[in-house]
């Protein structure tokens, strides 16, 4: 079957789609009729990858609107009907402050002026800091403790200052020189405004996509092999339903958007990507087992006081280096700090300086940390209080806050990139480079590669079949720096599964050898990476802590962290605020009425019997809380859609899937500064 055939003969969905459709709440109901609309290209998710794809397409159309390649098949006489659906309530409601080499972005915008993008700045200065533990609560191995003691003994002789050691140089693979510090929210807005202004593309925020619409049952290829199931569009989420998805007042069945090409860029926890993986499986040897939660704050620094360095150009020589030498600690726009070692050895951190006294400060909590009490918000609060950071931040004000799951499997988690009528781009397609710690530019680049491929096929009048997309998009990707980088990074972080120090060694080996050398390790599924209670928790009795937390009204993670010896947070109502206040002050979480709960706990018994309840501890928005019966409860209105619950469930009924399902949902953060 050709893609051309796929896009014709459309009607309302129902039985024909059900053969391949995943069992979502809406699609298992055969009596519900889904209205449909026809498009040429349907896109799920608007992030950097989709920005790259749509920019490439839109620009080519703008340059030559008369190009017959852009004539719509579904609306004769009109240009291509390109529809992009985004779950968040605004295209700027992104959750990531980034530093990126921006090679792909600059290739798309050769005359890019960072001043045009709010919160963007050229990377000027990079530091790598090893942070010692100033409070004594960090879980450090004996080896690490010995090393720390030696460092403390050597003190200023080795440059130790503020419980931090600055590496004498930034390894080349970490370097972002020539790149940009940005807010993804602002970048998305900037890209989106240009796209919509050009007129070819429609981007619809506040519209979650629940699933792909699979094509007819697969047929044989010309070579006699079995084809992958194709895709012929997207099904939007039902509206006007109760929390369980049952029709309620104002019910409107999710519309089917039929298209000859479906572009999937809904990120690592997106419902469309998940459904494709479930249906098609992953390529042989591939698995998504490594995850991380990135959580960060946007902080406004005070204009004076503790930051005498702010925008102080007088102490700089002409080349930007401090006069009189010495370490440059100033938080000038474009400054980038990478940190490791604190609050736990496994937690990496960052500080990026934007213009106008804004900084993004955050941490990454990886799945391989193992500890079930992965309490990112509390860890972030301790992180910003580390003396090396706190001396700059302490009089600041929390402006924004957010969190996001990162697919850290990189190339090893790469799914099938193309099939009949669909292509996958961005982080959900395994483009993130975990050696260099970068994903935005890689995602953007995969989008532009697909954009170029689609232009090629449109101009040649060729359909969007698996073969044609493989020969154009996948081939471009395989020949690109994205592929080379992801191969170099493939095993770079395996060593961390053997411990922090070996992890660092493995990373250094991979980085310095261009990926030729690394420390390999067996990587268990994410659920199995959650260890049972660590020894130091034995005296605590987790259940007791859970009960205490509930009785006291405190979040679970607070009780766990305090029990482990972390000092209480001295709330100041401005920067050090409770998790709930961060939701209100910084993140601004909302959920539109009329959508179903998108976090679903499948087997109640498994949840109640689960001892670690990492889902609650790791929930970025405190949207998952544990009830008196031990059952986690989900509040949609607090969910920031980080997706952490998806990979922080230690239970499985079938040994394959976790007990938590993360579906398409509405709402999330209302902040464009992230």
């Amino acid at each position, binding site marked *: 079957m050709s893609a051309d055939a796929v896009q014709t003969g459309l009607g309302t969905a129902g039985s024909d789609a059900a053969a391949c459709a995943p069992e979502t709440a809406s699609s298992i109901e055969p009596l519900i009729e889904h209205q449909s609309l026809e498009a040429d290209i349907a896109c799920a998710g608007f992030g950097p990858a989709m920005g790259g794809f749509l920019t490439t397409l839109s620009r080519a159309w703008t340059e030559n609107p008369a190009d017959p390649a852009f004539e719509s098949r579904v609306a004769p006489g009109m240009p291509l009907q390109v529809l992009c659906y985004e779950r968040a309530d605004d295209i700027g409601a992104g959750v990531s402050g980034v530093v990126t080499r921006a090679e792909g972005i600059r290739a798309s915008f050769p005359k890019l002026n960072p001043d045009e993008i709010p919160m963007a700045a050229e990377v000027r200065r990079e530091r790598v800091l090893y942070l010692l533990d100033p409070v004594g609560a960090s879980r450090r191995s004996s080896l690490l403790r010995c090393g720390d003691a030696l460092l403390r003994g050597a003190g200023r002789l080795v440059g130790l200052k503020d419980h931090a050691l600055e590496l004498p140089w930034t390894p080349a693979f970490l370097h972002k020189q020539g790149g940009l510090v940005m807010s993804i929210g602002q970048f998305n807005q900037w890209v989106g405004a240009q796209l919509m202004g050009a007129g070819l593309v429609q981007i619809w925020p*506040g519209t979650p996509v629940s699933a792909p619409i699979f094509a007819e049952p697969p047929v044989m290829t010309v070579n006699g092999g079995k084809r992958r199931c194709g895709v012929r569009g997207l099904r939007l989420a039902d509206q006007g339903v109760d929390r369980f998805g049952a029709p309620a007042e104002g019910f409107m069945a999710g519309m089917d958007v039929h298209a000859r090409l479906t572009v999937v860029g809904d990120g690592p926890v997106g419902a469309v990507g998940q459904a494709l993986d479930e249906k098609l499986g992953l390529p042989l040897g591939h698995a998504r087992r490594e995850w991380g939660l990135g959580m960060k704050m946007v902080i406004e620094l005070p204009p004076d006081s503790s930051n005498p360095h702010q925008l102080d150009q007088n102490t700089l020589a002409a080349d930007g280096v401090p006069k009189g030498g010495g370490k440059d600690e100033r938080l000038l726009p474009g400054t980038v700090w990478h940190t490791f070692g604190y609050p736990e050895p496994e937690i990496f951190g960052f500080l990026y300086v934007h213009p106008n006294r804004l900084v993004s400060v955050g941490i990454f909590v990886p799945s391989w940390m193992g500890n079930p009490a992965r309490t990112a918000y509390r860890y972030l609060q301790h992180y910003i209080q580390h003396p090396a950071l706190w001396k700059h931040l302490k009089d600041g004000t929390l402006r924004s806050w957010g969190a996001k799951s990162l697919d850290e499997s990189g190339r090893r988690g790469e799914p099938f990139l193309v099939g009949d009528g669909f292509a996958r781009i961005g982080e959900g397609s395994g483009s993130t480079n975990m050696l260099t710690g970068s994903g935005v530019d890689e995602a953007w680049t995969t989008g532009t590669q697909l954009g170029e491929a689609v232009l090629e096929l449109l101009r040649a009048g060729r359909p969007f079949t698996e073969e044609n997309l493989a020969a154009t998009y996948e081939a471009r990707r395989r020949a690109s720096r994205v592929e080379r980088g992801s191969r170099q990074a493939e095993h770079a972080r395996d060593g961390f599964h053997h411990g922090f120090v070996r992890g660092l060694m493995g990373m250094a080996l991979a980085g310095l050898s261009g990926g030729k050398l690394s420390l390999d390790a067996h990587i268990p599924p994410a659920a199995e990476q959650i260890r049972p209670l660590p020894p130091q928790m034995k005296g605590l009795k987790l259940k007791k802590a859970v009960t205490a937390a509930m009785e006291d009204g405190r979040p679970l993670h607070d009780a766990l962290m305090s029990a482990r010896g972390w000092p209480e947070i001295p709330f100041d109502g401005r920067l050090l605020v409770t998790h709930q206040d961060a939701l209100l002050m910084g993140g601004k979480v909302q959920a539109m009425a009329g959508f179903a709960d998108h976090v679903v706990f499948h087997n109640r018994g498994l949840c109640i019997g689960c001892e670690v309840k990492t889902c609650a501890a790791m929930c970025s928005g405190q949207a998952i809380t544990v009830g008196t019966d031990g059952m986690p409860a989900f509040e949609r209105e607090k969910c920031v859609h980080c997706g952490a619950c998806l990979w922080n469930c230690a239970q499985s009924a079938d040994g394959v899937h976790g007990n938590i399902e993360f579906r398409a949902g509405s709402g999330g953060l209302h902040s464009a500064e992230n």
Partner: protein
Amino acid sequence: MSNPLHIVVCAGIVPDPLQTLEPVSGPHGPGLKNEMVLPAVLDPWAASALYEAAHLAAKHPGSKVWLVALGPKAKLQQVMMTVAQKAGFELVPVDGPIGGFPDAHSTAAVLAETISAIAGLDKTRLLLFGGWESASRGAGITLQLIGEILGITDQFQGVDRIDMRADCSFEVLERVEGGMHQESVCAGLPAVLGWATGTLAEPRNNPQTGMSNMRTILPALQKARPVALSGDSLRYVAVSLPRQQRATRVVKDMSPDEIARELVEWMGAE
């Protein structure tokens, strides 16, 4: 019902209600810090007006809804991507400043001029809708001024309900003091209605409505007329953020009986 209505909805954009606001002084007077960066939404009460307008238009075949919006073009474009899925309308954008500090008199003059220039608008069939107050300026005067400029002397504010009759006379409920509604019957059009919450829930996002709207919205935005608002009459002496921080006493260990006694004692002082 064979009387088509021409409904013009005036609706501005305001910062998403959940944002933290901070005033700053600029060369053109006060504004909000990072105003262009803050996520924006359609003014909530004006949004009620839009949904009511679409609902009313649907009941009167041949009716038409225009949405007249003043704001920076880029911000309008962004907000329309959400609003356009909720109700059918034709956008009449005016590319002007954002925020609550410009003088309402200037805003009203620009909007009235814009409405007068709408091609095909029949003023004898006109229902001028809007929010009874904006969430930014909150003055509740712009709509009345537009009505006066257009010569409309049947005006209703704080409207929660309209029942249109076949002859285009209508019954209307306006909010008045004490949680009451004043009920009036207006003999016919044109009329000005400043809406409060109305009776309709926020409509679902309908992609087909969105696509249909977008065919006219994007070209309209590209042609949006740029305007500058004069504020010669208005002078801001000071603009500040109130300090409302209280020294909160958090009581954790009192029984319900003790709390009740303390509360009754506290209330009893009145």
